């Protein structure tokens, strides 16, 4: 039948045309060499439910890289950023990062924000002996995977403790309910560390409910939480979920304020929550209100380039890129093993998010800030320093 033949031919032409499309793209031409450009592979969630994380982080990294290149490059060599979208999916992370280290043979990998995704990438980078810096994954297990894995931020044992102590001492909360996202290592880890510290200091956990990333309806859990009459509710979830949870908490008649971690940090979270998050608190890596010349310059540069204010994730991306650059300068080359050693030896690096010193587990020992949502913005409340200079050991 002529119609069938035509449609079949159309199919074939479509296929061929698309296969041909890729010829110009070129592949693997950016394999790093000893004198050419320094290639940094960036894997980030640029689409999906965590897109804000990826977009803000890559902005920060790009800002840092551009400044270095404008000032003559790193050891005279240009930094080339290879940015890939992992869509917030762990399987995609595997594909993308494998391509970075085996195909493109990058000098360094930067990423991710969500700990679950960093945990997926770390073994791949470790096996390929390529340094990986996660700007904002806070779950302690990420860096435990190997000595080529670094992070530019604090870890969740610290963050959980910060939130627990804030709840007990500043909010005078004795009873806390927990709503954790069981599909993310970050949430489960942070919840566990909070619970441990809260109970250790005499608090009571009323209920511990679970949800998943991507859920739309949290009312069943919130109804149960409300019934347990907590003083405060820990919801260490990501921004899309907290927006929905906050709205539904108001509907369900929940009075206690919500408490969360840096996973809430998105430029749109307060708008998505429509005012329901007002009065709630989050811990984060940095706040513009902390002031100082480094922060002010960063905010000004970021605004000039992206026409919007940076958030903590952007700041961490910026710091991660600069941390790598400093290590390369100290090593005198982009050789991966040498850079790894220098990264591990980072001491007193003055970043936007604080002074970064790598501890024995390749984690940064830094301050945390507490912010409160008020009138459409997050307002700075306090800075919390690590107890005794180092956070409590992980589990």
């Amino acid at each position, binding site marked *: 039948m002529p*119609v*069938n*033949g*035509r*449609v*079949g031919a*159309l*199919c074939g032409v*479509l*296929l061929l045309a*698309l*296969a041909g*499309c*890729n010829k*110009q*793209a070129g*592949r*693997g031409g950016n394999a790093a060499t000893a004198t050419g450009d320094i290639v940094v592979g960036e894997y980030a969630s640029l689409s999906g439910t965590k897109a804000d994380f990826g977009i803000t982080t890559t902005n920060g990294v790009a800002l840092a890289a551009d400044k270095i290149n404008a000032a003559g490059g790193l050891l005279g060599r240009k930094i080339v950023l290879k940015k890939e979208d992992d869509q917030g*999916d*762990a*399987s995609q992370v*595997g594909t993308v990062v*494998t*391509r970075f280290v*085996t*195909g493109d043979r990058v000098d360094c990998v930067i990423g991710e924000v969500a700990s*679950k995704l960093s*945990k*997926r990438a770390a*073994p791949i980078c470790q096996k390929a002996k390529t340094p990986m810096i996660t700007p904002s994954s806070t779950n302690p297990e990420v860096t435990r*995977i190997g000595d080529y894995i670094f992070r530019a931020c604090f870890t969740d044992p610290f963050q959980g403790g910060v939130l627990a102590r804030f709840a007990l001492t500043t909010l005078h909360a004795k009873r806390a309910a927990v709503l954790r996202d*069981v*599909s*993310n*290592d970050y949430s*489960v880890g942070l919840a566990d560390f909070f619970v441990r510290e809260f109970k250790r200091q005499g608090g009571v956990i009323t209920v511990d409910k679970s949800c*998943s990333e991507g859920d739309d309806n949290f009312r069943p859990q919130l109804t149960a939480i409300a019934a347990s009459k907590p003083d405060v509710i820990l919801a260490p979830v990501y921004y899309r979920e907290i927006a929905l949870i906050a709205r539904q908490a108001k509907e369900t008649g929940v009075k206690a304020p919500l408490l969360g971690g840096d996973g809430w940090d998105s430029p749109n979270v307060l708008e998505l929550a429509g005012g329901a998050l007002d009065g709630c608190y989050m811990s984060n890596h940095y706040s513009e209100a902390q002031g100082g010349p480094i922060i002010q310059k960063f905010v000004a540069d970021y605004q000039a380039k992206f026409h919007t204010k940076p958030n903590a994730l952007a700041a961490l991306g910026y710091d991660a890129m600069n941390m790598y650059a400093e290590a390369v300068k100290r090593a005198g080359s982009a050789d991966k093993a040498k850079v790894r050693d220098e990264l591990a030896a980072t001491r007193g690096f003055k970043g936007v998010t604080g002074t970064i010193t790598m501890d024995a587990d390749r984690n940064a020992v830094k301050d945390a800030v507490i912010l409160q949502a008020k009138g459409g913005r997050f307002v700075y409340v306090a800075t919390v320093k690590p107890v005794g200079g180092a956070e409590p050991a992980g589990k």
Partner: protein
Amino acid sequence: MRPSGAFLTGAAILAAAAVISALQVTRVALDPTVYRLMVLAGVNVTLAVSLNMVNGFTGQFSLGHAAFMGIGVYTTVFLVDRWGPAVYAAIPGPAGFRQVAVLLLLAVVGGAVAAAGGLLVGLPSLRLRGDYLAIVTLGFGEILRVFIQNVEVLGASRGYNITHTEVTPPTDALFFWVAALALAAVMVSRNLMMSGPGRAFLAVREDEIAAEAVGVNAYRAKVLAFVISAAFAGMAGVLSVTYNTYADPSIQSIGFLKSIEVVLMVVLGGLGSVSGAVMCAGIITVLPELLRSIDQYRMVVYSLMLILLMLGRPQGIFGTRELSWDRLRRRKAASTPRQ
């Protein structure tokens, strides 16, 4: 006696796979991206060929095939870190031999558990036809996924990283086993077509009631098809997770979306055609890499392809025909002038 064409082809493929694996293990030649694609393609070929046994030969519509792969994946996840080292130590011989032995054991167990799953899924086929069976197979797949997401020791919804990777062959040597499994699936398919049970499958596809009328036990045929195909899918899952060293119970790796991808391979190649399934498994594996520059359009292209295909050429590329040496020889003979 001249060895048959099929035997020679199979031997040639296996030999090539052995050479590639040897080269890979000694770090010569192959671009890692190409190698990864080949392993992926091999796994997909096994999945497509095994699904073809159910959808193509027996005419049943299974939408949950990826779940059987998932069973193989998670059986491995459960066993390899827990008992892998002990089993590895208990086997005598050089390291390479021990690794292969562990892998084969995992494959056997994974395949067996998956086959049991296939039995479970095939059972309702007594009472259910067509669309309903399709939805039930889909349902089984999703129930399995939700179950895995709730079991902590399997990594739950956060995914699982295999730690004891030394008890199985290194990823660079895995292509040989992937190719061997794919080849086995193809051989079983072809032999099945000629055998008694295979004829029963085809009879059930053509007209179930007529088949029953001539004494074919349709129910047993359908269940058998599910069991065999599930076993192969399970083994493919074992190899796949050994290669990736990571398991993830998401909809696109062992759920509905992956099942659809395998259905696409079989339908594109032609329901019932083994060569079609093999070719299209390869095409569909490679296509994302070729289309990477327009990656965001890829899925739109797939879906358009699917629709156009069904509208224009629903029998797929091969229909129910197969690629074979005999056919090529015959065609050549037909085109040479008679003496």
